[in-house]
């Protein structure tokens, strides 16, 4: 006695079998719905393939009407038979995608009406696909003639709606409407969306200053649709309720406010918020939250209550490093390279490039002391115009080196501590217009040279200790505040 199952055709048998996972998913959705907690890693990992897997049934279900319609013409009649196969594939892939979706919803911290609607949509979609598949090719006569086309149209409509809901889950409820052109918005009757579920009055400090921060950085993961750790930041009440671990904001207690702790960590820290590549809060925003918590974390505080600090610190950019293009550097140094090499051999360890990527030079003759004299400074003339930092402290140079010094036009830092130079050399300083720091400590320079040095626009520090220049003497206006005695 053959069972009714064995009497079915192959296709129908597969159809019945396919019904089982659909019913299973239905049971799962009712009995084990997503509840906003995050769970087992496997569930989360597998579930994250849902956004990927879902594209297959979407593509396939859109293909079916194309095959049916285009297949009506005699030239493409071979297309029509394949529609059935494609429908079968759609059903199976829709079921699989729905299953992955349940894993994701269950394990990924989702809850709320949006995700529930999306899941119902997904399961209904699987069921409608199944109906299309079973209805195709039979019940073609009489009143049932329209069943298949209607079922197909319904399926596509359900898919569109489910897909839209899915997009909102990932990108936010208003991800389409917020960029909708004004005319279209009016036509559809869509209002400018409220970002917060319980928007506090903008006249309060919380409503006007703090809530927008959360809206801009936090509610994608801590909002009505997705709330990691059961923390919602979309209203004052839910903020103060805290997460599943307890309150995240404690009035006047920065130390005990987990929310504040997390946003002030170093970006490389594991606990840093916001995570997952979301834009971090600016230092001003962190500061605002800090003041608000320190002032009592109340939603009744007026928006003008806390006077923000006068100096808004500009956010210090994180430091980055440029790559050094060795070939380019070698090319730039080509003209100098042989002179530099020769001089380095003659005067070891006192002459070196400013950096690995630079063509400028740094000279520290102080190490040679008395042995470095005017003649030696002359010997450096081939490279003199590329020297940017020069230290001749305690060397044997005299005023006879003044012309040689004058050729060092790129000098930024010049030190002549404890040398025999006098105002004669100081006269050439006026021509060194890149000078930022000049030290004539313990030299023969007198106040007569101050006007020359006052011409240097970029000069920031002038060291004149142990000279005849005194603090109580006349200091040119341009040098006030830059001279150190």
């Amino acid at each position, binding site marked *: 006695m053959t069972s009714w199952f064995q009497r079915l055709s192959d296709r129908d048998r597969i159809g019945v079998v396919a019904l089982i996972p659909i019913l299973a998913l239905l049971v799962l959705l009712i009995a084990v719905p997503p509840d906003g907690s995050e769970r087992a890693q496997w569930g989360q990992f597998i579930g994250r393939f849902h956004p990927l897997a879902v594209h297959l049934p979407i593509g396939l279900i859109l293909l079916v009407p194309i095959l049916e319609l285009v297949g009506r013409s005699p030239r493409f009649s071979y297309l029509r038979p394949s529609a059935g196969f494609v429908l079968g594939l759609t059903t199976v892939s829709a079921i699989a995608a729905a299953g992955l979706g349940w894993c994701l919803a269950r394990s990924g911290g989702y809850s709320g009406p949006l995700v529930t609607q999306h899941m119902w949509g997904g399961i209904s979609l699987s069921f409608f696909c199944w109906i299309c598949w079973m209805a195709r090719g039979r019940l073609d006569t009489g009143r049932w003639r329209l069943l298949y086309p209607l079922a197909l149209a319904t399926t596509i409509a359900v898919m569109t709606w489910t897909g839209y809901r899915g997009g909102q889950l990932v990108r936010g409820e208003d991800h389409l409407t917020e960029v909708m052109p004004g005319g279209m918005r009016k036509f559809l009757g869509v209002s400018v969306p409220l970002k917060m579920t319980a928007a506090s009055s903008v006249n309060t400090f919380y409503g006007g200053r703090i809530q927008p921060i959360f809206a801009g950085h936090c509610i994608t993961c801590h909002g009505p649709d997705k709330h990691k750790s059961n923390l919602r930041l979309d209203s004052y009440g839910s903020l103060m309720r805290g997460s599943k671990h307890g309150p995240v904001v404690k009035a006047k207690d*920065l*130390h*005990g406010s987990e929310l*504040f*702790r997390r946003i*002030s*960590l*170093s*970006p*490389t820290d594991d606990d840093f918020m916001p995570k997952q590549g979301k834009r971090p809060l600016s230092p001003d925003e962190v500061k605002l939250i*800090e003041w608000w918590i320190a002032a009592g974390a109340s939603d009744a505080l007026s928006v003008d209550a806390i006077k923000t600090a006068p100096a808004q610190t500009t956010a*210090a*950019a*994180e*430091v980055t*490093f*440029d790559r*050094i293009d060795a070939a380019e550097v070698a090319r730039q140094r080509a003209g100098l390279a042989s002179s530099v090499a020769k001089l380095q051999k003659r005067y*070891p*360890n*006192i002459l*070196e*490039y*400013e*950096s*690995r*990527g*630079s063509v*400028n030079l*740094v000279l*520290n003759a*102080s*190490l040679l002391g008395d042995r470095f004299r005017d003649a030696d400074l002359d010997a450096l003339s081939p490279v003199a115009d590329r020297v940017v*930092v020069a230290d001749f*402290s*305690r060397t044997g140079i005299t005023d006879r080196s003044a012309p040689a010094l004058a050729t060092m036009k790129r000098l930024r*830092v010049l*030190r002549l*501590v404890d040398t025999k130079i006098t105002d004669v050399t100081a006269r050439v300083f006026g021509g060194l217009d890149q000078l930022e*720091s*000049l*030290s004539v*400590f313990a030299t023969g320079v007198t106040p007569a040279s101050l006007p020359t040095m006052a011409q240097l626009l970029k000069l920031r*520090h002038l*060291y004149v*200790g*142990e000279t005849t220049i005194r603090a109580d003497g006349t200091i040119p206006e341009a040098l006030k505040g830059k001279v*150190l*005695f």
Partner: protein
Amino acid sequence: MPDFETKPDGRHSRASNGEVDRDVRQALLQAQTRRHFLRTLGSGLGTVFMGTLAAKYATSANTARPAPASPDLDFTRDPSTPLSVLPPQFAAKARRVIYLHMAGAPSQLELFEHKPELTRLNGQDCPASFLAGKRFAFINGVPKLLGSQYPFHQAGQSGHWISDRLPHLEKHMDDLCLIKSMRTDQFNHAPAQLLVQTGNARLGYASFGSWVLYGLGSENQNLPGFIVLLSGGKSPDGGKQLWGSGFLPSVYQGVQCRSHGEPVLYLENPSSISRPLRRIMLDAIDAIDQQTYTDFGNPETVTRIAQYELAFRMQMEATDAMDIRKEPDSVRARYGSKPGVASFANNCLVARRLAERGVRFIQLYHWGWDSHGAAANEALNIGFADRCRETDQPIAALLDDLQQRGLLEDTLVVWGGEFGRTSMRENRGGQEMKWVGRDHNPGAFTIWLAGAGVKPGITHGETDDMGYEIVRDPVEVRDLHATMLYLLGFDHHKLNYRFQGLEQKLTSVKPARVVPEILA
């Protein structure tokens, strides 16, 4: 080998030719050490075998990497001048570092952290939340909160709070950059000091000064590039590894000098050896070392030759550099230093002289800041006050001198300990102790930086009202290292050395970031 023997009856007789031959042959055999045997082995069967293997395995992918070179920056030098100057990776302000390490961990709550709330709660029981989940070195049970033992006031145009213990340093308040949110994960001295100085709490890693020498070389070839001076009566707990070279070639290690008497023990020639005679001796040693290098090819041999030469040059220059009698009385008085007496003040004056002479990394350790309160010299109102007195004036004078000469523009000065101290009074064994002290607190401590590339007159980071934990901008020790290396002109990832299959770096393996807020 004797060419005559003493016979039992006391006569001497010349050995026969045969005996001499035998003795010579024996001596020659004994002169062939195992090392020689293994070396010549390579030219025999061994080489033939290796040749067959080499042909099989030699592809471009398998050819050995040149030994320790950074793939991005090349730090190789001629082995006879291992400390020659190299340019930094990019143009930077700092060209030398003076690191003042206060060994023992100075109490930030008695120096820079003004916590009136803590003072108000002085004597009350410490709340449980401060104790939960923490390990303490000595605190037991429920200690009492301890307010600052000294009054605070604001100083300088920046208006930073400072206690009354540092009256001289106060004048430089607008030059300092205070970091109040330093953090470490070590709560005992030796590993914490190792972490601060070598980037790793275990032994075997290269110290900061070694990295700087490796990266930049030493300008003055007649002095060690990395000099360490100790004061306070004891060496720091971390030991000599704090200035050791770890896995870097040993030529980059710090040289501990003395600030009175001979800078380095046994540097001077003994009375019977003149300098020319020493030169002849060194030439002979050089010749033997050169032969060894030709035989075995170990680059450390060439470095050894270089170090002997350095010691010879140091005989002239080191004594002169470290001799503070050459400074006028007025200068010595400003530091509070006395020649012949080992002190932090002497060390500071020597540090300035060394900075003028192109020493790359000068490190001063002052011992005795471990204010537990278990003895008078550990008490916050006795020993701690002494330490402040010993260091305040010299540090201020050092900053003065560097600034006057313009050297502060390219010298990075750092002051700090290895961790902080607790807001609670230490109660060793659960009892109230006779003297007042604090236990270790790795959760927050204060350091300051001054000089090259540092933004002066600011404070970075903040601790809570009790001064116990950081609430804003925590800075890990590795972040500080990354920032200091940045000021010296290096990306901390690129100043590296291949060892044990890893590109080792000062900031070790955890992610570190340069702190942009303290950069000028």
